[in-house]
């Protein structure tokens, strides 16, 4: 990733026109949307793909024998191949569409969790989003699985020595870890985690909710066993997420939810499950949302991850240079590799006040614990403000942020 740090600047500001919402005014000011890590804005191709489906080609899928159903099934299944290609997954049958990352992780906790034995352990890290913590707590309480926490360093990187320690007794069945922290921006060396997990006889799940927005993902190169992401952060619609898993694992796992489309045959006495991935897609899926996600992936690929990563590296560098100019501002964490997410605090000003006052300047940031309460505790904080960048973010927007923060600060001291 070294070359990303080189000053080869890629400017994607011409792409802003693809996002109609960016021309909106907020409190009479230009919208400066720095909350993309919570959910990204949608480009025209996504808006149009969904509206076009509803206008011209829509029906329920999979079991219909008529034109609308067959064509909609084709469109839906085509996105499965598209996602497989995006992740470099060995087979499109390994792609399961879910509601969001959260459901994908719950699915694994439930169905892979059913294969674990009491006494085995699941490892997560200190910097997990609640989505990658609570399902494992529920598994722990339900099935007698131990939950272990791999520590992070003060800089906000995964502590690999600590990880080695929690893996050392060979009792770990799964390491479930974020690929990129939504608070610290830390990009985790996933391959190293996978190698360590596998050496200890454990499987590994990466929560790619943030990473896939900023980095090309190759599940083979990462040697992952599971990888999850959520559509709405990748410029796609809400209501759709993805679970990728190795076929052998998905095959061995019992289903999560029961209903139509996930069975091969059913009587009152018993059901036989459909083959993977359908076994895990109960009921009418998010047809329109999957189609929208396909448009989002095409859009991202038309720009290219290389350009996106370079653009973002430039924004991060600019922000890390400029933010410290604000009196009292402190950036949280200094990870070795950082995606487009920066959390900060400001002496004498509560993050909530920062967010509310920035909003009056049209600047949208998040403030709070970012669904990572245990990480906040680890950092000795109760909340941070967080600015996050997307492909449509500009240096000028970061400058507006810095100027507004400076003015806010004067109000409080």
């Amino acid at each position, binding site marked *: 990733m070294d070359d990303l740090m080189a000053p080869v600047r890629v400017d994607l500001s011409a792409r802003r026109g693809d996002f109609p919402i960016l021309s909106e005014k907020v409190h009479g000011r230009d919208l400066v949307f720095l909350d993309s890590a919570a959910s990204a804005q949608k480009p025209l191709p996504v808006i149009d793909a969904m509206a076009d489906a509803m206008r011209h080609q829509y029906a329920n899928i999979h079991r219909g024998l008529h034109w609308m159903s067959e064509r909609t099934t084709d469109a839906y299944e085509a996105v499965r191949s598209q996602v497989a290609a995006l992740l470099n997954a060995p087979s499109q049958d390994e792609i399961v569409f879910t509601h969001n990352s959260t459901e994908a992780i719950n699915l694994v906790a439930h169905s892979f969790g059913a294969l674990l034995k009491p006494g085995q352990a699941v490892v997560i890290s200190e910097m997990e989003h609640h989505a990658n913590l609570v399902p494992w707590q529920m598994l722990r309480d339900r099935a007698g699985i131990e939950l272990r926490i791999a520590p992070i360093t003060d800089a906000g990187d995964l502590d690999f020595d600590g990880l080695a320690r929690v893996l050392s007794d060979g009792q770990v069945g799964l390491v479930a870890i974020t690929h990129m922290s939504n608070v610290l921006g830390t990009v985790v060396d996933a391959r190293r985690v996978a190698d360590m997990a596998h050496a200890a006889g454990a499987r590994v799940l990466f929560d790619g909710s943030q990473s896939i927005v900023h980095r090309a993902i190759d599940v083979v190169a990462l040697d992952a066993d599971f990888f999850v992401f959520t559509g709405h952060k990748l410029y796609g619609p809400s209501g759709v997420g993805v679970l990728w898993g190795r076929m052998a694992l998905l095959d061995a796992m019992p289903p999560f939810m029961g209903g139509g489309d996930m069975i091969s045959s059913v009587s009152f006495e018993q059901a036989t499950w459909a083959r993977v991935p359908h076994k895990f897609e109960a009921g009418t899926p998010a047809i329109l949302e999957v189609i929208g996600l396909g448009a989002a992936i095409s859009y991202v690929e038309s720009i290219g991850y290389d350009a996106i990563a370079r653009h973002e590296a430039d924004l991060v560098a600019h922000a890390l240079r400029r933010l410290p100019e604000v009196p009292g501002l402190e950036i949280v964490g200094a990870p070795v590799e950082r995606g487009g997410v920066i959390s900060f605090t400001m002496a004498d000003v509560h993050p909530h006040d920062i967010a509310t*006052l920035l909003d009056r300047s049209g600047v949208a940031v998040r*403030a709070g614990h970012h669904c990572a309460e245990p990480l906040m505790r680890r950092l000795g904080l109760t*909340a941070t403000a967080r600015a996050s960048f997307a492909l449509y973010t500009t240096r000028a927007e970061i400058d507006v942020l810095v100027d507004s923060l400076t003015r806010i600060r004067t109000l409080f001291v």
Partner: protein
Amino acid sequence: MNDLGHDLYHQTLMARSRAPRFAGVADAATGVGEGRNPMCGDRVRVSLRCVEGRLTEVRHETRGCAICQASADLMAEALSGAARDDVAALTSEFEEVVTVEGATTVRFMMFRPLVRQKSRRRCATLPWSALAEALAEQGVKTDG
């Protein structure tokens, strides 16, 4: 309204949050209550002394945002010396200001913008939750 365009963060509120007048712990407190907002980690502890149906002292220890700080301090001010029986009315008066568009009461008017900013309302009501708890300790209900 300040130069940042937000009518919540005006002089009084900022002054009170920077230099609260009722911070601390009530002497020989007869009731103590706490409110927490897990969303941001904010915490307000209210301690009070109630003598013969009158709140002779109300104090707060607040870790929170400016709105929460100021709300706690103005609440303590409004309650100090008040009859215990008036607390319910004061509480509803406050509730009305932050929830009803065009509330007619004059006290606590600085919090009126919260009607249209629901996401920050809890910052202002947190001290009142702590108060309710402190009074409940004494068997006094505030919501009736």
